[in-house]
């Protein structure tokens, strides 16, 4: 369970996030949705202890993220930001192998190699595992990063806009991979999503944020209504019944 209590982050006297109170029960995909600047990524980054809080506390599976040693936390929760830029020339397999670092400290055991194998095949990267990251397309590289956090084998996975820069086909494939990970591997995946229709289709619960606060939390059926969405996004949103469930129309 992720428990967010009175969390505040101040950027300036006018701009602040929170106070946020939120309880996320384990299991499934939880999508954070909302307009730009709502604080979704900030909240996610604080959950993943990459950003400090100015007030309140967050605990994940009973561990206070501000006080638990980073190495211990790395076996409970993993986080992937959207901008991943590094100069190191790594192959896909080497990158995914770093997901095992919290357990092996760099010396991979045969058991680690098996988990790496599984993460790689789970994201359909088996044919690419020997390739260097700078030789891959954006979608393939994104999958490699996700394979790394899956190899970390944490109960909670936090992803910041994993569909960024992906086209339709790759976005759908990525969401299916994540859906499988949540339901067959039993992970709890918290994910920042921009596309409300993707969120409705693949997430089990939606958390709508606006102006630094959580304004609605519930199942897709509860959130996907034109009243809630129009209020959250401050633009007219109509919700219609499509062939595979509800669709938000906003243009």
């Amino acid at each position, binding site marked *: 369970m992720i428990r967010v209590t009175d969390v505040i982050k101040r950027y300036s006297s006018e701009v602040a996030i929170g106070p946020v109170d939120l309880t996320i029960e384990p299991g499934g995909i939880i999508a954070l949705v909302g307009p730009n600047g709502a604080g979704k990524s900030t909240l996610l980054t604080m959950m993943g202890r990459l950003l400090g809080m100015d007030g309140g506390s967050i605990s994940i599976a009973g561990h206070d993220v501000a006080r638990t040693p*980073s190495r211990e936390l790395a076996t409970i929760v993993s986080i992937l930001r959207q901008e991943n*830029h590094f100069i190191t020339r790594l192959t896909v397999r080497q990158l995914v192998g770093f997901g095992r670092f919290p357990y092996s400290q760099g010396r991979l055991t045969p058991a680690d190699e098996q988990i790496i194998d599984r993460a790689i095949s789970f994201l359909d990267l088996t044919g690419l595992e020997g390739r260097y990251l700078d030789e891959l397309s954006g979608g393939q*590289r994104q999958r490699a990063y996700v394979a790394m956090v899956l190899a970390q084998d944490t109960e909670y996975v936090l992803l910041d806009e994993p569909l960024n820069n992906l086209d339709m086909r790759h976005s759908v494939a990525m969401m299916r991979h994540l859906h499988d990970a949540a339901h067959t591997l039993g992970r709890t995946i918290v994910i920042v999503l921009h596309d409300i229709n993707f969120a409705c289709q693949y997430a089990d619960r939606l958390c709508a944020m606006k102006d630094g606060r959580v304004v609605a939390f519930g199942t897709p059926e509860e959130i996907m209504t034109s009243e809630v969405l129009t209020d959250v996004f401050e633009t007219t949103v109509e919700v219609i019944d499509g062939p595979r469930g509800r669709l938000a129309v906003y243009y």
Partner: protein
Amino acid sequence: MTVPSPAAGAVRAPGRGRAPGRLVDPKLLLGILVVGALLVASLFTGVYDIWGADDGAAMFAITRVPRTIALVLAGAAMAMSGLVMQLLTQNRFVEPTTTGTTEWAGLGLLLVMVVAPEASLTARMIGAVVASFVGTVIFFAFLRRVTLRSSLIVPIVGIMLGAVVGSISTFIALRTNSLQIIGVWFAGSFTDIIRGQYEVLWITGLVGVAVFIAADRFTVAGLGEEIATNVGLNYPRMVLIGTGLIAVATGVVTVVVGNLPFLGLIVPNIVSLIRGDDLRSNLPWVCLLGIGIVTVCDLVGRTLIMPFEVPVSLILGILGAVVFIALLLHRRRRG
């Protein structure tokens, strides 16, 4: 640098791309043999007739052996410092001479000698190490404050910072009549390495051991603060340890040998281009190539205008600049 470039697929990892775990392979043995041959050549290159003269054996032990050991230690230390620095800044174009660290070491050395002209080698060394540490921390703090995405701006800022520190040193030297200290520092050279003068360089050997031990953690740090923290690495502590190791290596080498420009820049880049970036299996190569390049440059410097010597920094500077430009063009083509 992570933009996809389909044309770049020249180098493929062998086999299934499993991280190469073996430290010793036939190629590495060959490399060791080649560098070993260079070192033997270094032992027997010089004006003094060590075979014919009565004190030949003594001279061999007093000058040639220390000089060759110094080449090994300094070459490996500067190449590894460059590698660690590149990982910590996530920038391929930094190394102690493009971040001002060597200039800071020079300033520290000068200050100790101005304040206490009779200072021992150890005191001078401590001065240089402390100054390089301070300088590197300042540079890293600056990088954190202004997130510079353009990889070329970072070394430019570092070189500017180095130039400012260097001119402060020159000013102090002018006012205290100690310009020749600056001159000696600037012209890094192995000419004066003799028994009793070089032994502190062994400290850089310890730095090398530390880098080997922490290799995996430095590789993870090289993935950036966020990914490193995600997998549980104490990133700030790693930066501090890395800075300390770089400062010790740079400070000691500066005091004993002087400035060795570009060595830390070109060596890790060449190794990475050829072998990818598995740090643990690359480290022996980085050491070897560092030793090899500095030895070749020293041999060239010693034989070019025999019986005189050209400072090794001069040869390294020319070679380094050429390789640096080639790397810039190559990396640009790769995107």
